[in-house]
């Protein structure tokens, strides 16, 4: 039962502020992913919780106790490092046993716990090996085993699978999820990979330049990004963002993206919902799957030229040229056969996002 809370945490490296007024509550058993580009302060935040880094202001609470003045050892938190940090001169068994030996557990109990965790992680047959004789995935399993073996209050993971190759990453991702469901401990996981974040997290915390951008379930941050940064950071391929103008056209609305010769039709209610932001420069955000493409002209469809086609197997990403504006659309694979074809596209209003261009904040318009 562990709850972790960050209250107004600030951290400077010299004159650079790496964490700016961070407030966050992590509930018991929750799997939180800190997501952001490198240098956004996510690893520093994690290390501050672990006790490897001091903070300049604010409080870190574990189960209601402030811990920012405690050493790492006193916080009873386990951590898995990106570099694995296995002890090179010790066998796998000794590596996993290390935290137990450090606290002088009796030998029989230690042995049974080490073997149990090794079996859970499927490394029971590697116990006599040295870390240097292990594959990347097994090293990671040992590192996780070392963290789990003493049943810590919370698990911190700093890009734990970032150093593995793509296929192994996918495998380990599933395994970490399985372990979390089985062992169920409060976990903070740091990554720059949004697919990892989406697939693992109960809630995702998106950080940018030391500032928390949005906290929410994977679905929330994907379908309701609070600002342009989150909109473009989460989701692959990236959301289309274009400066846009909204106009009234009889009993409907038209959204014209800058550079395009013709506007996209939207329901009239958009006008009412945008009333509050009249006069502000707007940006339209639309994910590639929200750009619907047809071969034939139809009601509300705007002609476009297919520019570049990226076949990705299960679907294609097609760059569509509307005048001077380019929007990326997701189509069935092979739908647009060759570059230069004329196609017709419209925007699904239900998937459109509107942002205040100046502040980057979402206007919260949902259709």
């Amino acid at each position, binding site marked *: 039962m562990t709850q972790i809370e960050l209250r107004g945490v600030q951290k400077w490296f010299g004159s650079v502020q790496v964490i700016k007024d961070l407030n966050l509550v992590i509930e018991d058993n929750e799997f939180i992913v800190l997501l952001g580009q490198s240098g956004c302060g996510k690893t520093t935040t994690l290390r501050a919780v*672990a006790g490897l880094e001091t903070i300049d202001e604010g409080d870190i609470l574990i189960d209601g106790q402030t811990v920012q003045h405690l050493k790492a050892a006193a916080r009873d938190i386990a*951590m898995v*490092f990106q570099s694995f*940090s296995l*002890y090179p*001169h010790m066998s796998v068994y000794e590596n996993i046993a*290390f*935290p137990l*030996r*450090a606290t002088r557990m009796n030998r029989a109990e230690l042995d049974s716990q080490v073997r149990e965790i090794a079996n859970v992680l499927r490394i029971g047959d590697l116990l006599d090996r040295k870390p240097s004789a292990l594959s990347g995935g097994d090293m990671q399993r040992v590192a996780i085993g070392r963290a789990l073996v003493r049943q810590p209050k919370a698990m911190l993971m700093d890009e734990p699978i970032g150093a593995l190759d793509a296929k192994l990453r996918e495998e380990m991702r599933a395994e970490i999820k399985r372990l979390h469901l089985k062992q169920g401990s409060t976990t903070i996981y740091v990554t720059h990979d949004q697919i990892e974040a989406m697939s693992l997290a109960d809630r995702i915390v998106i950080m940018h330049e030391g500032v928390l951008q949005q906290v929410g379930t994977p679905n929330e941050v994907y379908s309701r990004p609070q600002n342009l940064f989150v909109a473009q950071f989460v989701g692959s391929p990236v959301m289309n963002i274009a400066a846009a103008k909204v106009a009234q056209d009889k009993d409907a609305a038209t959204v014209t993206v800058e550079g395009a010769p013709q506007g996209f039709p939207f329901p009239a209610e958009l006008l009412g919902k945008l009333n509050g932001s009249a006069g502000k420069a707007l940006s339209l955000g639309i994910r590639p799957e929200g750009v619907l493409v047809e071969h034939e002209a139809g009601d509300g469809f705007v002609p476009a030229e297919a520019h570049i086609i990226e076949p990705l197997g299960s679907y294609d990403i097609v760059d569509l040229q509307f005048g001077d504006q380019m929007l990326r659309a997701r189509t069935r694979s092979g739908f647009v056969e060759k570059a230069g074809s004329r196609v017709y596209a419209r925007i699904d209003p239900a998937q459109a996002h509107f942002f205040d261009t100046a502040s980057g904040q979402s206007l919260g318009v949902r259709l």
Partner: protein
Amino acid sequence: MATAAVMTTLDPKSRAASRGMSDLAIRNLFIIPTIVFLIVFNIFPLMYSLGYSFTDFRASSPAPANFVGLQNYRELLNDPFIWTNFAITAKYVIVSVIGQVIVGFGVALLLNRDIPFKGLITTLLLLPMMLSMAVVGLFWKLLYDPSFGIINYALGLGTFEWLSNPDMALYAVALTDIWMWSPFVMLLSLAGLSAVPKHLYEAAAIDRAGSLYTFFRITLPLVAPILMIAIIFRTMEAFKTFDLAYILTSQPTTEVISIRLYKMAFQEWQTGRSCALAYIVLIMVLAITNIYVKYLNKVKER
């Protein structure tokens, strides 16, 4: 086209350059002088003295050398005085090497953190090692002086005798050696310590290991191989020690094996016999080194 033209003009030139001296010629130029030097000054005397060690040759007498077989070796190994010299040497080696490891490794631990003027301090600490043995011997003789030496003055020992005291003299020599060579152990230890990745200490902190536990389970095992190398070097040197002991004192209790050897060869002129003794010392040093190297390999494997 332009590239091709350049290539064709350059090519013969570069070939001409390499024609000047082939790889083989360069190799010989570098290696042959070294080999000649080694043969003339090391291998030849080594072999020649091996020959002498089986004779009763005396360099001071015109009498020709007579082959005496293993007699020199037999007599030396049965000579209780020689064994006393070896015992003194062993005591000296143990005291001096252990002292250097404790002081050198200790100072390295202190230096292995962020402290101001770390580079300057390290350099200054290395100074003793750079001095000549003879200089060190002479000024430590003054430092140890019972009536005006600064050591007695600083420690308030009155007229305590260091070098002329038969029970103390060997330790005094060892202390000087520790002062002079601890920096060497420190330097190697420092290299070993800074090679221990910082994230291992972080992992140990997270794993709730105390500082002593971290030291014995992480630091020491990872520094052990390079520390072993320092110990091998220092043991070999201490075993052969001559100058310091010779300059500082002339006590029978400080007569380490090299001094005995020197006296046998150049004061008693028992050239053949001293050659045999030199060979006995050589074999002993090789044996000790081998034991260490075996142990080093074991440490490395761990």
